[in-house]
């Protein structure tokens, strides 16, 4: 048990819907009601302790009906992962994989091998709700990361500070939180010894080579020793700034407001007591009142896309998705830089337009039968088209008035298809 407070209000389909968006990729039709019946604790439990993996729904294919080639075909890496998000019955595992991708943001831009990126993705998934220490050690020697932050170029004769700096600044401690430029240089020395390269998109010779490692004494955070890469990680995790950094960063993926001082302290204590286990902290955040009663969060582009497809029971059947998500500001395996995506700025005029096309593509191909000439019924039908998400009265009345006006000059079927677009891009569907 954590000392952090637990949400005690009612837990109906509305609350379950938000939980499914924050901890996954939104509900499938009927899923919010089913989850609500379990009650909050049991619902959260089912997310952090999911059943055995089962991918359900139509299998992914490209525009010609061929299976995806995620390790080779350009953009198929994105499609492959998006397909997992759409079809998984372990949404939190997939969502945490996305969290780690942002946390340890590595880009194909620099790695130049989809195979290595997918290997890293597997590492994130296997450690999705495990031990942060194991994850950090895995990432530090992960070939994609070694290439991305020059770890493979960091040798005793030619130290390279790239990874050592980001290890502290972005991965474990936070900028200016208890380390010096001298620590950066000493970390670089401790981390020396890894080798490996990508040649023609294939990984070659990734290994730790003792003769490339600096075996001398280093002083990091005031401690001295003949430190190596594992010590480097350990020293960061033992640093007094680490648990507060970890909690704040993890929290920010689920709740848009800052935790109170007491919640922050309780979660830090939980993280330390559980010796760096991620799952209990995530569980405590998912149970926290701030998640259930605070403001909405703008959905990440891939979460928005995967959610629309889940609501429709539609699989990946076109390669357009990677381009559409890119236009919305999030191409998987291509974070903008090593700091990941800026979660506070998903929406502007450019990315709004990207989302507009995501919605348009998600509803494309749907049957357009006969439609009633009644504006309120058209609006209700357009909402149920997307699995009956919660829509405010404000939105319903704007849409109804608009539909009434359009029916003067356009057919009910055309107005209905436009309403589907407008429901999918309404504020309620873009933020949860």
């Amino acid at each position, binding site marked *: 048990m954590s000392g952090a407070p637990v949400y005690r209000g009612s837990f109906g389909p509305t609350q379950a819907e938000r939980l499914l968006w924050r901890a996954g990729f939104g509900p499938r039709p009927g899923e919010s009601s089913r989850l609500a019946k379990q009650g909050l604790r049991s619902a959260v439990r089912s997310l952090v302790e999911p059943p055995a993996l089962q991918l359900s729904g139509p299998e992914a294919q490209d525009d010609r009906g061929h299976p995806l080639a995620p390790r080779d075909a350009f953009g198929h890496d994105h499609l492959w992962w998006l397909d997992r998000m759409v079809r998984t019955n372990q949404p939190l595992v997939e969502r945490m994989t996305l969290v780690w991708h942002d946390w340890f943001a590595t880009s194909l831009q*620099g790695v130049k091998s989809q195979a290595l990126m997918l290997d890293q993705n597997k590492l994130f998934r296997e450690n999705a709700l495990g031990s942060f220490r194991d994850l950090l050690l895995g990432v530090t020697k992960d070939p994609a990361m070694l290439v991305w932050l020059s770890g493979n170029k960091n040798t005793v004769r030619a130290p390279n500070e790239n990874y050592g*700096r980001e290890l502290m600044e972005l991965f474990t401690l936070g*900028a200016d939180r208890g380390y010096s430029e001298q620590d950066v240089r000493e970390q670089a020395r401790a981390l020396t010894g890894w080798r490996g390269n990508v040649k023609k998109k294939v990984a070659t010779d990734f290994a730790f080579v003792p003769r490339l490692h600096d075996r001398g004494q280093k002083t990091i955070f005031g401690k001295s020793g003949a430190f190596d890469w594992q010590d480097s990680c350990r020293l960061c995790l033992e640093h007094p700034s680490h648990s507060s950094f970890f909690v704040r960063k993890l929290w920010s993926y689920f709740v848009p407001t800052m935790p109170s001082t007491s919640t922050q302290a309780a979660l830090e204590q939980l993280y330390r007591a559980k010796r760096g286990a991620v799952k209990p902290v995530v569980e405590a955040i998912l149970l926290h009142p701030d998640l259930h009663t605070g403001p909405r969060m703008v959905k990440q582009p891939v979460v928005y896309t995967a959610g629309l497809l889940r609501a429709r029971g539609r699989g990946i059947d076109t390669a357009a998705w990677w381009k559409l998500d890119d*236009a919305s500001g999030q191409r998987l395996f291509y974070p903008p830089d090593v700091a990941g995506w800026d979660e506070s700025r998903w929406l502007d005029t*450019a*990315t709004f337009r990207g989302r507009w*096309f995501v919605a348009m593509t998600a509803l494309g191909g749907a049957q357009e039968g006969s439609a009633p000439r009644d504006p309120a019924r058209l609006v209700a039908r357009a909402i149920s088209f997307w699995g009956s998400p919660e829509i405010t009265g404000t939105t319903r009345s704007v849409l109804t008035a608009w539909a009434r006006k359009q029916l003067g000059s356009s057919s009910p079927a055309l107005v209905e298809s*436009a309403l589907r677009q407008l429901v999918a891009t309404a504020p309620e569907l873009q933020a949860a």
Partner: protein
Amino acid sequence: MMSDCRDCTRTKLLRDAVAEAGRGLPEIEPGMPVPAGTGLSRRSFIARSAGIALAVYGGSKLTPWALDDGIAAAAAGKQAPVLVSIFLEGGIDSLSVLFPAGDPEYYTLRPKLALPESVGAAFSEDSRLRWHPAAAALAQLHAEGKVSVLPAIGYNRPDHSHFTSRHYWEVGATDPHVRSGWLGRYLDRSGSADNPLQGLSLDKRLQPALATAKVPIASLDGPDRYGFSANRKPHPLERPMLDAAAQLGAAHAASRDQGLRQVGEAAQQARHLAGELRGFGAIASPVAYPSSVDQFPRRLAGLAAMLGAGLPLHCVALTATGHYDTHATQAEDLQQGLQTTADSLLAFQRDLEARGIADRVLVHVWSEFGRRARENGSLGTDHGAAGIGFLIGSRVRGRMIGEFPGIGPGGLDALGNLRATVDFRGIYAGLIEQWLGADAGAIIPGASAFARPTLLK
């Protein structure tokens, strides 16, 4: 040649304007005088070609949104100076862009990466320095007096994190907690509540330097890419749908929920931007831009076209092409990015000159820091401190601002990084005062502490 090109562009604009006139206006307000392509002032047909004629002609009763009036008023009013901020991402190696061939330390600190004294043009203002061959286009503009070089720009107590240092530059303060951009704060004070084009981010995402707290700004990939119908076939209800999305946004504008508000604001601004850019077809540039898989040259071409069409842009921000975080194999990466960037900047200047609007535009090029003077052994360089910047345009003074401190003991700090001879906040303050004509004290924290060099001719 140039005037011919300008006439071509004007002819095209006029043709587009007439086509647009026949399309949009009469059906909205039948009683309105329909311009037939004659008798129009230059200003009005230009506004029309950009799709903003509704408000220029029809006034507010045509549209429920005040923003259209704001854009039209801005377009019809006195043309504001334009500041274009261009970011070289990753911390470009200033010691390669203008390399100190005449500094004896250079070949010691850079045994593998140093460029030979035989390449590149000499830099006329400091005999120790030479231009990287890939920056020849900048050397050319410099020779014409259109480039001011900042050979060692930075700030005291430099931060070596990409993100922290970039953030300082974006917000115009060495304060990690400031959320608005320096240009955003300028727009909040001097901009208008109803012209999102006053702050334009030419990017897939918003450039943080433009982030405002109050007034609207816009972000787009390129002016020829802002339709809302898929497959080039316009959706029959495209405009009404976009209007409805904006209405939904407006309906949630007063919501207590910040998430609903954010989506609502984006929807409204998207609808307005679409209105402004409607009718803005393929870009016809009077000069050739470099071909590149990167959007940068096309974005500059689109920017020049929008300025030429009279759209009310004021502060613009975008990222240059290239990867400048050259921890390894620096030579190739730097060469490629620098070449396309410099060539694009030259093309942009020539484009503005051909359109007769070069006097209105000033380009500011910056990077979050320079790189370590000593190379790192991976054929690259690690994060440094002071770096290089440029001011480009017909109106810039064309003289070096601050000096190159050298890479001997006096020029480097205790960590072996270049010392700054100019503070970036002094340049921001100078741009705000001398180019934008506003009070820098209200925008740049502690502005009075920084020297303001003379920036303009």
